[in-house]
């Protein structure tokens, strides 16, 4: 099923309450009153739909990728905020109790503190939630603190919003719509509970421990975990995991990292982690034996399922090489005979991760490894500059490589430029897989 199926599914969810309101056949009020109610109904449905766009549900993320779903979560939250902000200001009918003869509340807004306070609270909290999500770095909120605040705030907004709809809503007074709101709220909170309570409880029976932490490049570490249970992680080369090291199983201090090991190479799982901020700053100080928890697999960045591609191009920027290293290791471990090219961009030589292993892979598996440095040292004979359209044309132009699979991982600017350049070379976008962890 193509990724585009997610769009009508989302629209059905976001428009379900409004459609049910429409079907009630109540006599309409003024244009602006009806617009205000519609904006409120859609905003609340969108807020509840946000709980399914957490990037943690595989049935959704395997179609579009976690990064795309998270980006949609951000953008749709902002759109919901716009509808929610408009909702109270569009009403023009008087805010008084409707007269007795007006049984459908056509001439007045059902106003009263009991009806209004949940809406006002949800309205204010929603603005705060979106603002703290956008400005988290500027405010200096720590990641785990922000996650807790974001989750609790979202539940509060959803609960207060539904309470407001049930108490004040002209259309939500209908029993069917009332039950739909309650069911959507239950599903939304259930989705959050699944991610933060049920999934950790399941993980509790599958503990891991840190086997080694080894420097592999400047401020970059290879962290290997071994399972403390019978069995192993179920993942495909190139996928990523939410990793929690040294904290309780319910800790919110977990971060997404690409898996750099090959699934067929054994039970251990390895990550390549660069010191960038928060948790990663302390990665080099983690001692072997430390307890760890894995939530995996996630992501769609894998060569598996693309067996028809006659060759595989891997294009990495910086630490984005981690999942591609996992794919290369898997290709070598399984003796995949397809030609493979790795274009690997870094600023300088000290940032090249696992340089010797890449050379070994080139020698043993025949992978063509092309290092690209933007600040090359004196005497550097390899490619220089950025991975740009010219370099991509040199390696991938022509009909022979049009049907290859292209797997990209790196900073957003690089990914966007490379993707555009590959499409300009005639590579179908269905042959291009990319993943980024920075969404803005």
């Amino acid at each position, binding site marked *: 099923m193509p990724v585009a199926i997610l769009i009508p599914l989302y629209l059905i969810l976001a*428009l379900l309450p409004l459609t049910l309101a429409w079907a009630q056949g109540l006599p309409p009020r*003024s244009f602006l009153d*009806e617009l205000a109610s519609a904006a409120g109904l859609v905003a609340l449905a969108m807020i509840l739909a946000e709980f399914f766009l957490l990037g943690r549900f595989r049935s959704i993320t395997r179609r579009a990728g976690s990064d*795309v779903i998270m980006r949609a979560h951000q*953008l749709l939250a902002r*759109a919901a905020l716009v509808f929610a902000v408009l909702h109270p200001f569009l009403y023009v009918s008087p805010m008084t109790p409707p007269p007795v003869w007006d049984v459908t509340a056509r001439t007045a807004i059902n106003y009263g503190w009991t009806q209004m306070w949940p809406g006002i609270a949800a309205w204010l909290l929603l603005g705060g939630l979106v603002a703290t999500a956008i400005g988290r770095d500027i405010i200096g909120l720590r990641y785990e603190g922000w996650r807790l605040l974001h989750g609790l705030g979202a539940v509060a907004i959803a609960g207060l919003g539904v309470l407001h709809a049930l108490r004040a809503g002209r259309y939500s007074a209908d029993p069917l719509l009332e039950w739909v709101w309650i069911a959507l709220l239950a599903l939304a909170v259930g989705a959050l509970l699944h991610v933060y309570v049920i999934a950790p409880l399941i993980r509790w029976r599958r503990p891991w421990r840190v086997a080694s932490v080894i420097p592999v490049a400047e401020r970059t570490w290879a962290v290997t975990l071994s399972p403390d249970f019978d069995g192993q992680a179920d993942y495909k080369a190139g996928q990523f995991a939410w990793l929690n090291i040294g904290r309780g199983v319910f800790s919110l201090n977990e971060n997404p990292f690409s898996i750099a090991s090959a699934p067929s190479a054994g039970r251990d799982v390895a990550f390549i982690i660069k010191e960038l901020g928060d948790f990663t700053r302390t990665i080099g100080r983690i001692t072997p034996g430390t307890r760890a928890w894995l939530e995996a697999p996630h992501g769609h960045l894998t060569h598996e399922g693309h067996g028809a591609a006659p060759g595989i191009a891997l294009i990495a920027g910086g630490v984005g090489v981690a999942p591609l290293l996992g794919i290369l290791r898997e290709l070598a471990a399984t003796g995949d005979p397809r030609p493979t090219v790795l274009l690997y961009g870094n600023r300088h030589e000290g940032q090249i991760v696992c340089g010797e292993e890449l050379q070994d892979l080139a020698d043993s598996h025949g992978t063509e490894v092309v290092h690209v440095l933007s600040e090359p040292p004196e005497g550097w004979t390899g490619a220089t500059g950025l991975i740009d359209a010219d370099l991509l044309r040199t390696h991938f132009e022509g009909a022979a490589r049009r049907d290859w699979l292209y797997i990209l991982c790196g900073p957003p600017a690089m990914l966007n430029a490379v*993707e555009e350049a590959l499409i300009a070379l005639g590579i*179908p976008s269905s042959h291009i897989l*990319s993943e980024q962890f920075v969404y803005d």
Partner: protein
Amino acid sequence: MTDPLQGLPSRRRIRLAMTLILAVLTLVILGFGLRAIG
């Protein structure tokens, strides 16, 4: 069923999908309001 978003880079695909979603939502909201006039 072919994917109508194929042929576009992922950034443009997201932008197109978001535009499509917001356009449909806005049109239905406006349609709901227009019942008062029509």
